[in-house]
């Protein structure tokens, strides 16, 4: 794409697309050739480096009320042009518009794999929801800031088109919440001492990892009668059928396994082992029930202390696996557990 003019598609709402105000917010997605509204100023700022080949317009209400359908239509329209880059907005502090710009950005990022540039006020809800999928230029809170927003967006579009390295500092976009490695001039221990001296002397310093908001889950109410409950076993301790048939990674797992334990009352070393690379595996391999207590639950099932042990257990490796991956796994299999009528889960970690 470096030798050719960058092909850009622009997404606008009904207002900036010139359809009308709030009364036209139900407008269905449509596309126009070339640049339109703020796109014209953007085209002027881009000069000959890039060309806005099409503008896709959708009413904010229509988008919000028909999210899947509207997004599908919008993406289909964008995709047809095979753009090198997509611009959405700028949306300033318009909430519904910002969320639509973000949702379009996410779909473009995931389906078209091309960069997206947008512009929003930092408090726009679209920022928090979608910032990692787009380079969202910081704007003021209203269209009065258009004159400043357009050159900033154009600057970022041009840089991305040339595959230059961009950073929040050099290109005035809102950090995407991504962590990126680089080599510092000083080693970590030296930086630690520098930070310690600054902290002791109440001088300013910048932590290298600002603490995230930590997600703490409140426990559910206990089940009233365990003797009637269907109970499932789920573990992040990596217990798998021996040989690890699904190749769950020993660290930084990209997947989980679901295995049938119908008729199994004991996890023997001949048939089960751990795939986990983060703890001493010797004792888990000798007796995997230590991590996934199938034996005890079978006894309790026999004795009528629990209703029934669910036919499948779910397992992954927690070692070095990102919180985001873990949450994504759970989102998937929890629905299956609910559909299978499971009332309680014993979640074992290591």
């Amino acid at each position, binding site marked *: 794409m470096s030798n050719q003019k960058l092909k850009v598609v622009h997404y606008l709402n009904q207002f900036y697309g010139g359809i009308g105000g709030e009364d036209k917010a139900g407008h269905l997605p449509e596309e126009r050739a070339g640049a339109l509204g703020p796109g014209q100023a953007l085209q002027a700022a881009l000069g000959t480096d890039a060309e806005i080949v099409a503008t896709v317009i959708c009413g904010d209400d229509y988008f919000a009320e028909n999210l899947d359908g509207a997004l599908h239509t919008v993406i289909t329209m964008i995709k047809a042009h095979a753009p090198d880059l997509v611009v959405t907005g700028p949306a300033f502090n318009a909430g519904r518009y910002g969320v639509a710009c973000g949702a379009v950005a996410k779909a473009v990022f995931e389906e078209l794999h091309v960069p997206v540039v947008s512009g929003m006020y930092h408090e726009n809800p679209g920022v928090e929801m979608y910032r990692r999928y787009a380079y969202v230029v910081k704007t003021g809170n209203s269209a009065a800031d258009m004159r400043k927003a357009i050159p900033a967006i154009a600057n970022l579009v041009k840089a991305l088109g040339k595959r230059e390295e961009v*950073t929040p500092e050099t290109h005035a976009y809102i950090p995407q919440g991504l*962590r*990126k490695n680089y080599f510092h001039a000083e080693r*970590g*221990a030296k930086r630690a001492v520098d930070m310690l001296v600054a902290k002791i002397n109440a001088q300013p310093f910048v932590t290298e990892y600002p603490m995230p908001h930590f997600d703490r889950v409140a426990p559910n109410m206990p089940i009233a009668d365990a003797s009637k409950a269907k109970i499932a076993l789920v573990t992040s301790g990596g217990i798998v059928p021996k040989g690890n048939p699904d190749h769950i*990674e020993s660290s930084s797992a990209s997947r989980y396994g679901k295995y049938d334990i119908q008729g199994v009352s004991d996890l023997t070393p001949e048939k089960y082992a751990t795939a986990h*690379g983060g703890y001493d595996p010797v004792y888990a391999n000798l007796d995997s029930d230590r991590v996934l207590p199938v034996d005890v639950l079978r006894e309790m099932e026999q004795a009528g202390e629990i209703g029934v042990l669910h036919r499948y257990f779910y397992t992954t490796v927690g*070692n070095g696996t990102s919180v985001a991956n873990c949450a994504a796994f759970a989102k998937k299999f929890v629905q299956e557990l609910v559909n299978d009528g499971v009332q309680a889960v014993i979640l074992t970690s290591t």
Partner: protein
Amino acid sequence: MRLELRNITIKDVRFGAQTEVKGDVLYVNKQEMIDALQDERLTSIDVEIAKPNEATRIVPVKDVIEPRVKVEGSGGVFPGFVSKVDMVGSGVTHVLKGVAVVTTGKIVGFQEGIIDMSGPGAQYTPFSDTLNVVLVAEPVQGLLQHDHEAALRTMGLKAAAYLGEAGRHAKPTNTEVFDCPPLPQALLQFPGLPKVAYVYMLQSQGLLHDTYVYGIDAKRTLPTFIYPTEVMDGAIVSGNCVSACDKNTTFHHQNSPVIHELLARHGKDYNFIGVVVTNENVTLSDKERSSNFTAKLVEWLGVDAVIISEEGFGNPDTDLMMNCVKLEKKGIKTVLVTDEYAGQDGASQSLADADPLADAVITAGNANEVIVLPPMQKLLGHKETADVIAGGWYGSLAADGSITAEIQVITGATNELGFSKLTSKGV
């Protein structure tokens, strides 16, 4: 305690008829060295040399150790292992600077690492810059993992002591002197300067996650005081590979960077009182006990601020936060050194535990970032382990010998003692 570290800079390592230092060259009598390392738990030991810029890959790497020898003062290097359990840290120690012993062979677990001597992976490991004497050792059939780990650990320490001995009479290139007085004098030094200490967290979660202090497994210890100079004589030994990237090898401990950086400004910006070593055990009661003891000892030292370094990730993030929070609540300022597991895309929360009081953090980088390590001409060890070590996956090793994996697989890549320069930022 007063320790002189006399560095003997070595510029080349070659095999020779006698193990000796001549000028700036270390000669190794291969057979004599192999004979010195014999162990009934090992069927074969081979010695190879890997030098910077060579197209050589070492995998799976278990430990890296610096050859040292005590020439004056009590005890010997690696007390509790190759020397008696005498107190070390005073007198004179010779260091073969630029040389490292690297142990490899059949994999013990999942946590061993990769050292590339050249190519894109080399910049992530400090051991692409050292002249490596590589021990390739294979265990007897049926050797249990705990025994296998112990055999390799002992072999590496013996090898470093064996090579270190060659430097006993060599002429030092330079000398560093570290004088660390007993507590009453230490506290009276430099009145007016703030007092600081170092909280040195040692991995102690079990097989391949163990660290030894004077030969005792750190999981069976309570937090205690140690002189900075004791660490330089090998009082702390690695038995672990957490993930290769944030494992503290024995080499890292011998050259413990927070200790050296704190000593560098001691007497100018603060008064560095000493080191508290603590562990990272797996049960909640152990974590509570160790962090309570750590906070108590630090308060007892009467210091104003500490640096706390973590080893490993996930489970020990809890120990790190407990230590931080308990100290901050006593009014003792903390700076933490950790690394991150933010996912391959860098989009996830990086730590498994967090607290707003942890407001001063140094990061050694995101261990999940993916790297492609091109094929190398020479391989020491077993390349197929790339698919199972922590940070690799089924298919990491391609047919052409290249490896696509997270930097987690590289020995020392995100070292949490702050040994290296890799870090991470929000973008």
